[in-house]
């Protein structure tokens, strides 16, 4: 029986009724990786021996009748921005090529406690800065639906791994759309939880006030499952909020009564591809057919999102990335005649162009004489963007729109145009700035067969409602069941 196209919940059921073992599961996914990852290039690091060891331990545990966690025997691919004890964690950068953390990220600890199989580290834009994985210091991941195209980014490796059925589940991180955009472009489900819902401990920071860890899955039920495992309070992250985690699966199939959907005109402006737009309009009609009310809303400050984001995120990054100086760990230059040259050469050699660009942007935004006009002004506008959402959620349950303005673009198409690349996150960024919850679900395909993502935004800590709204659509459609032909 082939397992690779199945969802995690289906695989879990087959294990529970004794049809398959964790070892068989691991072998099938390892074989899929072996066959196809040479072409897809989702993984930076994978250790088949270790994976089979993990699987055998789970089977042993099951045989002994011990209690098993919610993800027992299920492979989960990990974006290489999350620290795993004893496993190389490069962040897609030459800077951390030889870095092996002596600690687990909070979410990795949660996966281990849930008996999941840690299934390799996935490719990403260096330090999560990018929208295509083209900024990876190692290689570019391919979109499984069309390998001449990008999978999106920065969590492109995780998205491609799930879309290409190399793993049923994956974790990514989302700072400005880095989960939702690749999920949309790869035709799978991806969630950016509310800021503070999931601990950031062990997540190598890009922009601390925006980063969140979240799941990639084939369908909404799997996303609910993985969210249950990774959510919750962590005393090691001061920004992680102590709000109870409901069972996202328990009420998942209950539709939201009297659902009011907000549609922001700002998400349907210039630059939106017409095929994407018509898919989104059709999705709205599906909801209307289920009795939902569509409400026109306005998010007047969202037009500043990209500008605000590239000040706030780069400012924080310029400081977060200061520690990579070749002194204590990471890449150290051979060209070091004094302290300053040791610093500048280590950083110059270890960081790629985009990372350097953003460090310079952020340093500039914070420097004296410019801080008021850039960084501090950006913080003020960020507050206004948040206020827009607060107002909108007073009148509607969720806000729907496109995840990205276009379907997956060609490799190299925007590589030399950073601004065009930045604009591919135009619809996802405001969610991070406001700290609200967001997700992308598959809602159609272009004539060329490329997936289109529907973005669902919800108020802080309203993940349960967001998932139920997503599930309503999924039950009416079959986009989530399609798998690319490799």
């Amino acid at each position: 029986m082939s397992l690779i196209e199945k969802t995690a919940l289906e695989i879990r059921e087959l294990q529970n009724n004794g049809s398959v073992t964790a070892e068989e599961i691991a072998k099938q996914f390892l074989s899929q990786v072996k066959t196809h990852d040479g072409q897809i290039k989702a993984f930076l690091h994978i250790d088949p021996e270790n994976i089979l060891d993990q699987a055998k331990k789970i089977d042993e545990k099951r045989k002994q009748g011990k209690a098993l966690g919610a993800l027992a025997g299920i492979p989960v691919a990990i974006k290489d921005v999350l620290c795993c004890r004893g496993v190389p964690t490069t962040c897609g950068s030459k800077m951390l090529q030889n870095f092996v953390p002596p600690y687990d990220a909070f979410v990795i600890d949660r996966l281990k406690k849930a008996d999941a199989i840690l299934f390799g580290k996935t490719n990403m834009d260096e330090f999560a800065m990018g929208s295509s994985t083209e900024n990876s210091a190692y290689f570019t991941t391919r979109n499984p639906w069309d390998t001449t195209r990008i999978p999106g980014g920065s969590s492109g490796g995780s998205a491609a791994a799930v879309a290409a059925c190399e793993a049923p589940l994956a974790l990514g991180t989302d700072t400005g759309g880095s989960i939702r955009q690749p999920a949309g472009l790869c035709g799978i489900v991806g969630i950016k939880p509310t800021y503070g819902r999931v601990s950031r401990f062990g997540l190598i920071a890009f922009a601390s006030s925006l980063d969140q860890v979240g799941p990639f899955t084939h369908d909404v039920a799997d996303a609910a499952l993985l969210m249950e495992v990774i959510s919750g309070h962590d005393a090691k992250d001061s920004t992680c909020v102590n709000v109870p985690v409901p069972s996202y699966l328990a009420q998942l199939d209950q539709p939201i009564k009297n659902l009011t959907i907000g549609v922001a005109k700002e998400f349907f402006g210039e630059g939106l591809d017409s095929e994407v737009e018509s898919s989104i309009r059709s999705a709205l009609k599906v909801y209307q057919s289920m009795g939902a009310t569509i409400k026109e809303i306005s998010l007047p400050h969202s037009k500043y999102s990209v500008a605000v984001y590239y000040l706030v995120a780069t400012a924080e990054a310029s400081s977060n990335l200061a520690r990579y100086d070749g002194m204590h760990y990471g890449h150290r230059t051979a060209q070091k005649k004094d302290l300053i040259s040791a610093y500048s050469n280590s950083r110059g050699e270890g960081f790629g162009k985009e990372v350097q660009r953003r460090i310079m942007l952020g340093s500039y935004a914070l420097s004296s004489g410019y801080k008021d006009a850039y960084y501090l002004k950006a913080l003020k506008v960020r507050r206004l963007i948040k206020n827009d959402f607060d107002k909108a959620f007073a009148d509607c349950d969720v806000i729907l729109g496109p995840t990205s303005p276009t379907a997956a673009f060609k490799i190299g198409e925007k590589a030399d145009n950073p601004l065009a690349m930045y604009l591919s996150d135009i619809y996802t960024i405001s969610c991070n700035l406001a700290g609200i919850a967001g997700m992308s679900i598959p809602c159609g395909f272009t004539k060329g067969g490329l997936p289109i993502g529907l973005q669902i935004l919800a108020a802080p800590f309203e993940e349960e409602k967001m998932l139920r709204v997503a599930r309503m659509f999924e039950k009416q459609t079959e986009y989530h069941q399609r798998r690319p032909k490799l």
Partner: protein
Amino acid sequence: MNTPYQIIVGLEVHVQLMTKTKLFCSCKTVFGAPPNSQVCPICLGMPGVLPVMNEQAFQLGLRAALALNCQIANFTKWDRKNYYYPDLPKNYQISQYDLPFSYEGYLDIDTSSGSRRIGIIRAHLEEDAGKSMHDESGRGGDSKVDLNRTGTPLLEIVSKPDIRSAEDAETYLRELRLLLREIGVSDCEMQEGSLRCDANVNIHILYSSDNGEEIAATPLVEIKNLNSIGSVGRAIQYEAERQYEAFQKDPKNYRFGKLLKTTAGWNEARGMTQVQRHKEEAADYRYFPDPDLVPVVVTAEQIEEVKRSLGELPSQQRTRLQAAPFSLSAYDAQVLTGQGRKMVAYFEEVAKISDPKSACNWLTNEVFASLKERSEEIDQFPIRAPQLGELINEMKQLGIKREKARDVYQKMLAENVDAKTAIDQLGYKPFDDNLLLDLIRKAIEGNRKAVLDYKKGNEKALDRVFGTVMRETKGMGRPDRIKQLLLEEVAKIEA
């Protein structure tokens, strides 16, 4: 002061808080541990780790700020100060920038010219950096970094430029050290670096030129590398004189506002300051709120609770000791309080049994020296307060003189016995009036002529008789009582 200028000083003091663990991780803060043995991924600034504020550090900060009469912000945040240095592995220091948790306080100090109030601009919390050790042989050896200290909680206390002399700067530091030790905030050991001080110094000169008289100010110099309270005073004195000479050479240009602020190091061996760098060349620290930490909210109830737990502060103690029933002099009150709360409590117990003036004299003349000799704290001292009180009382009652009493004290200390036993064992018999009268009558018999001379009007003649009696008591008789009884006896004799 007889100098032709006025010294103006502001002090920036850093004290390490006496927490068990560091400010943002759970590493220990023991001084003197082997290099890099008290570190973890958080204070090493490894990828992906996050800081979590140490509640105890914030509480100690609050104690210090309230003891320094500071206003407490009800909302405070953490900021990142960005700069590159190998002993700061994150390459930013978590500190407080525009919203310190406390501000606008003061510390009263007793100076030779009376009480002075030194304003506190702000007191804020921050993490300490590690220590770099460079090869100073000039052979270009490797530098070494010890990160044990990295992340230790520091309280930075910035005074207003209210200090007017080197002596006052020392007094301020001593008072601050006493206060912070007494309320359990820091051990303030300058040798171990748990108290560090930078001094901002300039002088105001009454200057007459063709344009008339004016007050001229010299450019600010920040003095670093001050390793003891004494060196702070010496450095300020030296720097003031140096600035005065520099002004004399170029009164037009050596002026505040015309020259940039400079940083100088104090060279204790050579007794001079040495310019290090111009301050304005310093880095732009690109401060911004640390997104990994949440703001801290302090409630009025919390502030009240900390205030209640502070106990009596040294300045309050001084005031109380100068009032009834103790009525000590300002000097005595200062000296006693300077020894800490335990000493004051000991004093109070002795004073209650005996009297405050004698109690204070005994402490300052004898006990302080004994403690120093024995390297003991007052709570380890074998002569407890009731015994010292008893000694003072016996001494008065029996008319034991000072030197003899000191012998009793030494015996008590050496043999750990109480005052009465020591007096007995030393054979210092008490002389009551009957015994004294016997001695006096015998002395009168033996000095008939002198008594008659006295009766004739030679006042001095009686001294001889008095001396005889004193000799007979071996110095144990109370001179005033002897004199009184002698006069009474002599009065009975017919001329």
